[in-house]
């Protein structure tokens, strides 16, 4: 009983960690530009597929280049890191195409919502062209996880190593990022731009570069999440990231828009809440996140850890 509960909680925390990654990606962009990048879900997919290819996976029969793949697969951790960097670069491209032109023109910020959605649609369908719509399973071998056993026994509970890695890696990523934002010079510059881009520019901070940095990091986080989920479950098709993107949105609101600790706490909370849904009602599990989202918006729109903003006239 206790073992089962432990297992459930760990599963919840692991998926919660991934939700936190996605939500943090939204948070970075939102705090700097005050807009939401709806291509985040697509970047999640990109990360998953990049990890798959880098680990030596082959393109399936419905893809553009059937049977093509790297001659030698990279180790799990290296593939994950490179895939995250790759998604970050794609994130930069999204910024160039979907956000920069509107910003230069001082257009309605809500338009960025549409253009980023469009960028997401393009990305997902390009993936589908390249890789086909079929699902991919990662090669499951012990050396894929750097020689660790597949299953660990902790306190009598059987835990899949990958779940634990998922939790640890997302925790590490979140921790490093928060520390960087809080302490380092670059992080401070980023926060300064978030506070007031014009003033930051006057103080000698290159605002545009900071915006690009935020998009790169945000894309990287999404890619990392996609890679982790891909390795631990599978890649069910190019659209799989969209669902995580939407969940991340719910987490974002739950934690409070623009709040880094909020995104982390919201992610963990959401993962745990979903894990505790009994399996007899598993069909409704996807609705839970959005029901919570709805409740939060109505009761406390600023989120659990967000700041209340007073609208100025």
């Amino acid at each position, binding site marked *: 009983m206790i073992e089962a509960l432990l297992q459930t909680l760990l599963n919840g925390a692991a998926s919660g960690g991934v939700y936190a990654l996605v939500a943090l990606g939204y948070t970075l962009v939102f705090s700097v530009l005050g*807009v*939401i990048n709806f291509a985040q879900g697509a970047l999640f997919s990109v990360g998953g597929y990049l990890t798959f290819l880098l680990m030596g996976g082959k393109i399936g029969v419905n893809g553009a280049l059937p049977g093509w793949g790297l001659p030698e697969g990279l180790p799990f951790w290296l593939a994950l890191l490179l895939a995250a960097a790759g998604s970050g670069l794609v994130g930069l491209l999204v910024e160039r*195409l*979907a956000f920069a*032109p*509107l910003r230069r*023109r001082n*257009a*309605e910020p*809500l*338009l960025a*919502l*549409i*253009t980023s*959605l*469009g*960028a*997401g*649609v*393009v*990305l*997902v*369908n*390009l993936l*589908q*062209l390249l890789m086909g719509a079929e699902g991919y399973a990662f090669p499951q071998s012990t050396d894929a996880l750097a020689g660790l056993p597949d299953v660990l026994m902790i306190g009598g509970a059987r835990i899949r190593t990958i779940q634990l890695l998922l939790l640890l890696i997302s925790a590490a990523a979140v921790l490093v990022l928060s520390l960087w934002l809080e302490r380092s010079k670059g992080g401070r510059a980023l926060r300064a731009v978030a506070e007031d881009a014009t003033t930051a520019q006057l103080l000698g901070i290159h605002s545009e570069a900071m915006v690009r940095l935020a998009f790169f990091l945000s894309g990287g986080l999404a890619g990392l999440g996609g890679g982790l989920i891909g390795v631990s479950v599978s890649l069910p098709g190019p659209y799989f990231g*969209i669902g995580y993107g*939407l969940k991340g*949105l*719910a987490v974002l*609101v739950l934690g409070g*828009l623009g709040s880094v600790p909020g995104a982390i706490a919201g992610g963990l909370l959401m993962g745990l809440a979903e894990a505790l849904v009994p399996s007899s009602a598993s*069909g*409704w599990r*996807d*609705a839970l996140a*959005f*029901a919570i*989202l*709805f409740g939060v*918006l*109505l009761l406390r*729109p600023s989120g659990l850890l967000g700041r209340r903003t007073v*609208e100025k*006239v």
Partner: protein
Amino acid sequence: MLLGALLGLSVYLPLAAGQLSLATPAFYAVGGTLAALLSTRWSALGATASGGFPVPSLLLELVLGGLLAGLLALLVGRLVLRLQGIYLAIATIALVEIVRVAILNLPFTGGAVGIFAIPQPFATAAGYLLPALALLALAGWVCQRLEGMPLGRAMAAIRDDELAARCMGIDTTGAKLTAFVLSAVLAGSTGALAAHFLNTWNARQGSFDASITTLAFVILGGSRTWLGPVVGGLLLTALPELLRPVGDVRLVLFGLVILLGPVLAPQGLITPGLLERLGRWGEGGKP
């Protein structure tokens, strides 16, 4: 295509009051599911064994689908319309997802397969042209009338500056709610019509993708006049069909339209200025 124009108008209505609502697919799904259930389960409507269906019953379904969606909008709108901007957009996405999961999991809506063999009121697909056109004409007429009515002016005032509108004594909540409910009624009726047209109905009809697509109708067409969403809806529903020869690339191109449309034409294709110029050109052309 006409259905696309109708959905475009349904997104336009709240937007005319400055409220970005992505809830249209939820109401569309509700209307469609109701029509699918009624026509396959309730024999009093007169569905024949050969798959025929009397037209008056179809009209009854359009009304009922609209009413149910409107009722839902009334309940939900009271709560969510307190939210603004991006929060409202997210809340309405949540509504779409909740409705989708509910239709997927409720015991009587057929799960993932959905409801199929929905009886046909018309022998050919062209038969649907008439009710769709009538619905579009009705919706267009309402939108046109709105522009001159106190309610429409109140909506425009809220779009430009909600706080100022409230200071002028405009019942902003009431106007926003009315726009939201009108939008839902339209989406619900469209769904009821679409259920018959498509012959099968399942949860996929009202998904997040549909939110994007319907919003793209309005953005491409322009959100300042009601003609904009109609044109946008017509164009974008025709586009995937026109692009069918290029095969798999068509969804990529479709995404590019959504991505580049707002960049190249921030006001959409049909702007009030364009209409004015067209009008002047029309007058100038007369002898």
